[in-house]
């Protein structure tokens, strides 16, 4: 997976967002003194290679009324965790779902971030997940955040 200097300049120019104008890739091109065709071709190539996961908007859960959220964690049978994880990830109230390794004193391998308008609603949705996992799940818990201690965007440096 290689990125050349031009790719890195495109990443640096677009990672905070795209211009809301009819030809957003032409705006990037003008800024970087490239042609629009080259920017489009390179971004399509980065998407094909998985470097760009998607071009999309990110909803603000809080503004959309989803002011409660909890990190639910599940101890799911290893042989079924992949298939069941797909189902949990597809639920409309789950924004992110991951398989992660277990640790000592931490039996949970499936993580799913649940969003709701109230904590009661989050707990109801947690029961929905429990129902889907059924007997493949041995234990679960949910961790509510009480404070944001640090929040910074991910940034990579531009090409040289």
């Amino acid at each position, binding site marked *: 997976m290689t990125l050349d200097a031009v790719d890195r300049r495109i990443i640096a120019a677009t990672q905070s967002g795209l211009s809301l104008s*009819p030809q957003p890739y032409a705006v990037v091109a003008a800024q970087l003194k490239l042609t629009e065709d080259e920017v489009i071709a390179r*971004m399509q190539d980065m998407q094909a290679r*998985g470097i760009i996961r998607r071009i999309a908007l*990110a909803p603000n859960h809080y503004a959309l009324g989803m002011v409660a959220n909890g990190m639910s964690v599940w101890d799911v049978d290893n042989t079924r965790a992949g298939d069941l994880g797909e189902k949990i990830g597809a639920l409309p109230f789950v924004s992110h779902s991951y398989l992660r390794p277990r640790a000592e004193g*931490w039996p949970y391998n499936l993580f799913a971030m649940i969003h709701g308008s109230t904590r009661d609603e989050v707990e109801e949705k947690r029961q929905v997940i429990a129902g889907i996992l059924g007997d493949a799940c041995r234990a679960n818990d949910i961790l509510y955040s009480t404070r944001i201690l640090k929040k910074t965007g991910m940034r990579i440096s531009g090409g040289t």
Partner: protein
Amino acid sequence: MRRSSLPPDALDATDRAILNALQEGFPISKRPFAEAGAALGIAEDDLISRITNLREIGAITRFGPFYDAAAMGGAFCLCAMEVPAAEFEEVVTLVNAHPEVAHNYERMHRLNMWFVLACETEQGIERVAQEIETETGHSVLRFPKLREFFIGFRVQA
């Protein structure tokens, strides 16, 4: 970032359709708004002004490419620590002082501090995690992602 709910009438059905559809993807082409708008039955200029409005009222946090940090050569790891209450603020300061700590949340659990390390390499993750262990005297549990399930979050259309 806005952390309070918008009034219920802030978004109409078209806004909700845009929110759902454009989480999935957006074209890389010469007139992407015209293309995406056609799929939704909205004119190019209407789609642009609606997304602009969604951004202005804080209904979306971002519009653009989502880069895969690992594919770009970066390494990420969710980490957790069990920090005694009396030491909590001191440990927050020590942990947050590392620029590799991208975000950090206090959570209600025995493991009460959860943060993400973002480094250029896997070795970097290991180095920073060990530094934090040395500085704080507490274990840093590492939960790297083994697999991701992403579909996205839906608003009621």
